[in-house]
């Protein structure tokens, strides 16, 4: 039996038509919006704020995280005039604006449109922002530049009514970088750049992974064993999406509607057959395939591009929260010293591309002058945080401020050589990708002396790549205020006891979960340590 949400979508026919309701509400007020309207407003990227009635979060669509200076300036202008002069960079290379009042929404959407930015399908049961490698086209090590293919796929699905009503949100990544920074393991569908040896030569194309996803039930993607040439990507993606769209049994329960469940239920063979049936060319086999080892990758720092004498500058934006002032400065610097090319990353960071060698120093100085320092500490660089209780209706804890508090505390006390992925997420929906973090902190609550307090469940051991693993919960409900000191102890002991060059996850595996739990327990006297 289809869910009530299905009836809402079928009722309107074209979910993108909710634009009319938004326009009407801009004149008549927020209360003129029904609950159904608010559900459909997601198709325009509008998501109701948690506490204050009348305000939305607005998520944009920024395919592959590609942004121009002019676009960033426009976003900063909107943020300054309407929205308290800040924005949030997301884990899908995207931007979220908060405090969007419904009466401002039409103006904001038009202003963005004039700058070439759409918000169609940023939220809702549709193709979401497609993620790619943020240094596509400039990375010396990439197999090839997959960004034209990403743009083509994004354009095809943008506002496409034929695919405007999927069973649930749908997340795709397309890239051809050797580090697989587009996180194919956790996407619904991912096209992963690869080289196939055939007839003594090499062909460049994509290997396809399907069925990854996090939220409350975590799945890693599986390889479809299909080699797809760049010009075949859109037809193949269209075919896969049609299979998903038309699998009506995934419209009966919102908690079992994601593509990952279809892949788990059907298995790869059945899915591949169904996809092949829709194509007028045969899906080729991939053959031998090498996955990268998991290594921390955040694009932070100053890096040489493949183009001679050009560099990209990667800046950590702590927990993705960027001020209007910082956006304006970054846009200015990109335009003045580079060619205006900006990229966003899945670690909530910002890159300025195509900076000539002799201009790197003024760019760094300029960024530093607005508090964007390229030399983030390893602790700072590794942190990711979701929106949290500040704005999100689903969250049970404060995340960004808490993450920054933890970072500030740990930075002065633990010197790491390499960043660790420390992801802070406000509830079991794991929007901050906590399951793949070295240390995942998942928000929860506990009652202490009659009061409800914020707590975090701590998990360790997540990673992607060849030895991919989701992390394991070790202790539940540590008071949020105590997290920083518990992590301090764990990290100091990791530094003290690790073998030379031993990675954090390997260390935890070696000493065993029980021992890690002991390190996360409240501090005891040194003499109490039994091992």
């Amino acid at each position, binding site marked *: 039996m289809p869910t009530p949400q299905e009836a809402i979508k079928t009722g309107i026919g074209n979910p993108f038509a909710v634009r009319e309701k938004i326009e009407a509400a801009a004149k008549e007020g927020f209360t003129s919006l029904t609950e159904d309207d608010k559900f459909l407003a997601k198709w325009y990227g509008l998501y109701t704020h948690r506490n204050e009635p009348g305000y939305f979060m607005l998520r944009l669509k920024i395919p592959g995280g590609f942004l121009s200076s002019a676009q960033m300036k426009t976003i900063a202008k909107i943020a300054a005039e309407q929205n308290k002069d800040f924005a949030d960079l997301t884990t899908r290379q995207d931007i979220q604006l908060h405090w969007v009042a419904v009466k401002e929404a039409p103006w904001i959407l038009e202003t963005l449109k004039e700058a070439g930015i759409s918000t169609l399908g940023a939220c809702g049961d549709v193709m979401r922002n497609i993620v790619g490698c943020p240094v596509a086209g400039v990375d010396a090590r990439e197999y090839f530049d997959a960004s034209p293919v990403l743009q083509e796929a994004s354009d095809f699905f943008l506002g496409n009514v034929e695919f405007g009503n999927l069973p649930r949100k749908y997340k795709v990544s397309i890239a051809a970088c050797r580090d697989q920074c587009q996180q194919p393991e956790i996407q619904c569908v991912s096209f992963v750049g690869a080289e196939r040896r055939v007839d003594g030569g090499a062909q460049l194309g994509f290997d396809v992974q399907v069925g990854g996803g996090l939220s*409350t039930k975590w799945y890693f993607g599986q390889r479809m064993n299909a080699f797809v040439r760049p010009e075949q990507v859109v037809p193949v993606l269209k075919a896969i999406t049609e299979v998903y769209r038309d699998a009506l049994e995934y419209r009966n*329960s919102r908690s079992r509607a994601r593509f990952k469940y279809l892949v788990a239920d059907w298995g790869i063979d059945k899915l591949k057959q169904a996809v092949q049936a829709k194509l007028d060319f045969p899906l080729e086999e991939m053959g031998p395939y090498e996955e990268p080892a998991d290594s921390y990758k955040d694009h932070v720092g100053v890096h040489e591009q493949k183009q001679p004498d050009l560099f990209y500058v990667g800046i950590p934006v702590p927990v993705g929260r960027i001020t209007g002032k910082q956006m304006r400065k970054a846009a200015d610097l990109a335009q003045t010293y580079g060619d205006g090319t900006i990229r966003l990353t899945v670690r909530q960071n910002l890159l300025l591309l195509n900076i000539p060698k002799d201009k790197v120093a003024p760019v760094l100085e300029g960024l530093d002058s607005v508090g964007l320092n390229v030399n983030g500490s390893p602790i700072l660089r590794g942190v990711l945080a979701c929106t949290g209780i500040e704005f999100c209706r689903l969250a049970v804890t404060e995340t960004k401020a808490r993450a920054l508090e933890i970072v500030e505390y740990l930075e002065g006390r633990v010197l790491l050589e390499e960043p660790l992925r420390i992801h802070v997420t406000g*509830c079991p929906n794991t929007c901050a990708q906590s399951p793949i973090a070295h240390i995942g902190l*998942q928000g*929860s609550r506990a009652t202490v002396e009659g009061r409800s307090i914020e707590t975090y469940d701590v998990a360790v051991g997540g990673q992607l790549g060849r030895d991919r693993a989701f992390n394991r919960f070790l202790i539940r409900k540590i008071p949020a205020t105590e997290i920083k000191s518990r992590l301090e102890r764990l990290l100091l002991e990791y530094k003290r006891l690790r073998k030379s060059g031993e990675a954090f996850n390997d260390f935890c595996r070696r000493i065993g979960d029980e021992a890690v739990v002991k390190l996360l327990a409240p501090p005891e006297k040194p003499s109490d340590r039994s091992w």
Partner: protein
Amino acid sequence: MSYVITNKCLGEQYASCVEVCPVDCIYPGDHKGEKFMVIDPEICITCGACLPVCPIGAIVESEDYDQEFAKVNKDLSPSFKGNPKVTPRPSNDPPHKPTNKLV
């Protein structure tokens, strides 16, 4: 809106759900002489963490799916709330009832 523990849990009480609930709104108790668990609809935040972890799939995602047991969950929550926590059964423990199976 709230998640609901259905009749499948009667006599089973795996309690795998309790640990993953971020707001501690799942309580054990006895219903009509059988072990049971309820989700407190006053507190449930519909995060969905419990549904996938029940070894026998006893949880549904809203009252619409089981109005009879939605009422049971609602009615029994106040009295179950103070009950001491039970030790969870291993998730691969065979169900006690022949009508249940591990999902």
